[in-house]
């Protein structure tokens, strides 16, 4: 049985990638944050970000999906969609 990250774990790992590898300000990490205007990423960062996500989550993000990413929430959604059985956090 393969353990899949929960939704909150996915978001935590994505946030960590952005902070540690792309020097994004943690305070700016909101789902609606735009990668370019709010998180200060540029077009050249895109391919590095996708590589980092794919290494972390052991998945392949199709090119068209990768190119449609605009916000942090889009990243969460794309990664979650590539996880076979991502679960929402349980408990109260």
């Amino acid at each position, binding site marked *: 049985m393969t353990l899949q990250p929960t939704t909150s774990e996915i978001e935590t790992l994505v946030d960590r990638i952005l902070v540690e590898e792309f020097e994004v300000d943690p305070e700016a990490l909101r789902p609606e944050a735009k990668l370019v205007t709010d998180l200060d990423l540029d077009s050249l960062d895109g391919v*590095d970000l996708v590589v980092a996500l794919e290494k972390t989550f052991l998945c392949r993000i199709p090119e068209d999906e990768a190119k449609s990413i605009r916000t942090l929430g889009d990243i969460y959604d794309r990664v979650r969609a590539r996880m076979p059985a991502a679960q929402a956090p349980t408990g109260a």
Partner: protein
Amino acid sequence: MKPAVGAGDGASGPVLAELVPHRPPILAVDRVLAVTDDFAEAEFRVPIAAADADADGNLWEQTLVEGLAQTASALHATSARRAGRRIARGMLVGIQRFEVRRRARVGETLHYRVELIRELRPLSLVRGIASVGDEVLAQGELKFYVEDEE
């Protein structure tokens, strides 16, 4: 995958010119040894009268980057050709996680190998290694912008 250029019949001269757009005096590969959609290998014998060598015969570090970039040109050109696209212009736009252990010297034969890590057109990311024999001289990642087909 069968290489477009096999190890035994490396591309030089006119064939090399199809794969690598650079021309002397900035041409930094003599021969493309092998190339597929995923990797390319090339070699370059550093000439005695290399313009980019210091008084002691050591080449500038940038020469290794240039050689890797030109090897990547062969990779991109072959990939485009196999996909039925025209061979587009490209440029090196970034270097990262790159280390130079030592500079190449006049008279040495450099071996360049580049592997495609990821392509998100028009950007591609490759890992490159420059070596002499078994000794790695430099390695790291290079990022390219390659024009999209119109």
